[in-house]
């Protein structure tokens, strides 16, 4: 351990740790802005400047490592003055319409001003950049950017795409795609990870709240709402619940209190997706085993950020993608057909709203392929953050809500659907059902969990040997199914490069566009808890384990929709409503 002195306090710290970390462990808080624990360490804002005795200049605590005998002052007159000036310079060209900013009261720059006690604004030059870039998913307000570069780290360092970078110089500098073009024309996957890390209002989801209020307030319109699996384990954070609290029942109650007519659940459609995608996998595997032409590995298609990525960067692999629409699209398509018919409402008079942990779903909802009978499957997509915002706007006291259930017939789900929201979940859910179909027996694993693909590693794989299969599936006897799971686009690139090189050993690959899957999607509440991933993961797995039914094919309302409406999985009607196709976007760099 290294011995040093911070503010006259003798402390010890592990070698290699920074002054900021050492101080924090000893109860000394050094104000910081661009630094983000475990994510971004860049030293661009310099707010964490501290005085180190013997050093020529002030040091930045988030970068400077501790040294033996170091004497640090984190709160000297010089440090205080420096921080204030740095802050004032940041404010000098920052748009200061805080009261009408979406990040009002959740803005890290605002919080910092409070901590530093800056009482005046001496260098107001007006905003250098008045650019507003509104894409289907992400809105960039460059007048608010403070050049912390967290978004650059998220985009380039974490997701491996590198759309955003610093362009130009001096007062002309912007964090922007190449040639300072709109983000919609830059092969952005719309994963929204940049919007999660942005400390200010410069990067955010494109607003859908207004259009949803309009639909709710129109008595002619029947509003259907559905939340994704990951929303229920994160929404509570917006109302002061600890990270990893499941608020499923209260969420359903809140949606009803907003004035929504039908409160359905995307989980229901996740069960349906397993039936469709599982069958699609079976068909492809049977073709492959009987010597016919079949494209394997099959790659999952639930994550629209991932879809936009593969369309842009690996268009040659589009045939590998499952043709299944993502679950909320399936629900939207069936709400406006199966359900609308049953309650005698014209599909044009129905408005479907998805609550998603995702920004890419906003883009997906606008895709021309996601239309049946002339109406879009989903009319609006709200992020988890936007739903929280609407609940607050409506004056609903979320914490005092009694738990309520989802509505039938598109509301019941099994445990397999819950885990759709976390990396490995779609694969595990699919294996649970496909194994039963082929062998007639339940998966012989403890708690039905496919242990090797549970967890947050970037790439996970599992091999499943099929033995004593049912007579209809005798071609699978002794067959070893190899699956891989990845989350985050950097991991996806590794698996896709393997397929391109012809070395991929897998039959089935699950990809989720965001690291850890939807639980940490681009539309989730921003969290300062470094363990947010594990906590939300645990919450989803306990939702799964708390259910009586934990395999999609056992869901009675799924059985009913096949019996009454769809016929069979991957049948004619399914193909019309639940499946889609993809487009090559590799040249969309204009």
């Amino acid at each position, binding site marked *: 351990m290294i011995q040093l002195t911070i503010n006259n306090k003798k402390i010890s710290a592990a070698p290699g740790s920074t002054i900021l970390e050492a101080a924090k462990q000893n109860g000394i808080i050094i104000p910081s802005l661009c630094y983000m624990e475990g994510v971004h360490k860049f030293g661009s804002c310099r707010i964490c400047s501290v005085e180190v005795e013997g050093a020529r200049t002030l040091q930045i605590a988030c970068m400077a490592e501790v040294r033996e005998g170091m004497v640090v002052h984190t709160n000297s007159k010089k440090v205080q003055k420096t921080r204030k000036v740095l802050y004032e310079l940041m404010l000098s060209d920052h748009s200061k319409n805080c009261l009408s900013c979406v990040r009002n009261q959740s803005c890290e720059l605002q919080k910092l001003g409070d901590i530093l006690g800056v009482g005046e604004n001496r260098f107001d030059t007006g905003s250098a950049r008045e650019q507003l870039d509104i894409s289907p998913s992400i809105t960039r307000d460059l007048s608010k950017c403070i050049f912390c570069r967290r978004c650059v780290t998220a985009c*380039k360092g974490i997701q491996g*795409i*590198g*759309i*955003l*970078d*610093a*362009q*130009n*110089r001096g007062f002309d500098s912007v964090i922007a*795609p*190449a*040639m*300072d073009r709109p983000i919609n024309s*830059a092969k952005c996957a719309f994963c929204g990870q940049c919007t999660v890390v942005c400390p200010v209002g410069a990067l955010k989801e494109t607003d859908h709240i207004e259009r949803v209020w309009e639909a709710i307030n129109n008595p002619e319109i029947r509003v259907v709402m559905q939340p994704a699996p990951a929303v229920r384990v994160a929404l509570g954070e917006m109302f002061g619940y600890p990270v990893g609290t499941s608020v499923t029942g209260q969420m359903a109650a809140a949606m009803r209190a907003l004035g929504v007519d039908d409160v359905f659940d995307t989980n229901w459609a996740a069960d349906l997706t397993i039936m469709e995608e599982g069958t699609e996998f079976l068909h492809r595997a049977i073709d492959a085993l009987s010597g016919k032409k079949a494209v394997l590995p099959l790659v999952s298609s639930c994550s629209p950020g991932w879809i936009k990525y593969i369309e842009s960067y690996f268009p040659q692999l589009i045939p590998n993608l499952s043709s299944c629409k993502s679950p909320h699209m399936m629900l939207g398509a069936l709400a406006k057909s199966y359900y609308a018919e049953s309650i005698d409402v014209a599909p044009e008079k129905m408005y479907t709203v998805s609550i998603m942990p995702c920004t890419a779903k906003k883009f997906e909802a606008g895709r021309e392929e996601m239309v049946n009978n002339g109406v879009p499957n989903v009319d609006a997509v709200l992020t988890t953050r936007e739903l929280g915002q609407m609940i607050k706007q409506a004056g609903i006291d979320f914490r005092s809500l009694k738990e309520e259930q989802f509505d039938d017939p598109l509301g019941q789900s099994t445990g397999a659907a819950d885990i759709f929201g976390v990396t490995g979940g779609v694969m595990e859910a699919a294996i649970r059902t496909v194994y039963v179909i082929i062998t007639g027996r339940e998966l012989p694993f403890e708690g039905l969990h496919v242990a090797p693909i549970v967890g947050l590693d970037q790439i996970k794989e599992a091999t499943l040997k099929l033995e004593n299969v049912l007579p209809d599936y005798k071609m699978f006897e002794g067959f070893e199914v190899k699956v891989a799971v990845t989350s985050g686009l950097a991991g996806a690139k590794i698996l896709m490069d393997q397929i391109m090189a012809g070395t991929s050993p897998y039959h089935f690959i699950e990809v989720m566009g965001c690291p850890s899957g939807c639980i940490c999607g681009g539309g989730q509440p921003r969290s300062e808890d470094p363990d947010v991933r594990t906590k939300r993961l645990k919450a989803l797995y306990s939702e799964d384990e708390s259910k009586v039914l934990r395999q999609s094919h056992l869901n009675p309302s799924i059985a009913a929709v096949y019996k009454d409406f769809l016929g069979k999985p991957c049948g004619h009607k399914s193909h019309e409503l639940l499946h889609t196709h993809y487009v090559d976007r590799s040249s969309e*760099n204009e």
Partner: protein
Amino acid sequence: MRIKRIIRPNEVPIDGAIDLHLIENVVAKYKGKKEGLIALLQEVQTVYTYLPKPALEFIESELNYTLGELYAVATFYAQFKLKPSGKYSIKVCKGTACHVQNVNAVMDEMIDYLKIEDGETTPDGKYTLESVSCLGCCSLAPAMMIGEETFGKLTGESAVTYIKNFEP
């Protein structure tokens, strides 16, 4: 006063499609290297007189850079140009010595004659007019370069005459 300088190699016509074969060897030299991006961009600019987008996309596909990174560097340094320059650049010195010898008046006359502003290219693609910090020949102030040739002791009238009569 005319001073002959080294002739620029690889004159490339401004119009027409970008021939990426011209930079294949240049880019290949930097494969697997982490450093040297500025030098690479300089070499590419020497070939095309500017950094055409297809060339940067080619670098992105061949080397481990994203287009965003390449433009980040290309737009930071004043030496890199993203638009084709004229066949000859007219570099007008705005250094201290030239400034006190009233180079601004000389510049104004050239702007009037060429009908383009500082930094722009004539519609026929022959000249790009740009002001530079110092050409390093203060004894000739006010001075300018057309292509690789230097002209000094300028007046507005002589500057325009030099442009009119310029043949490399």
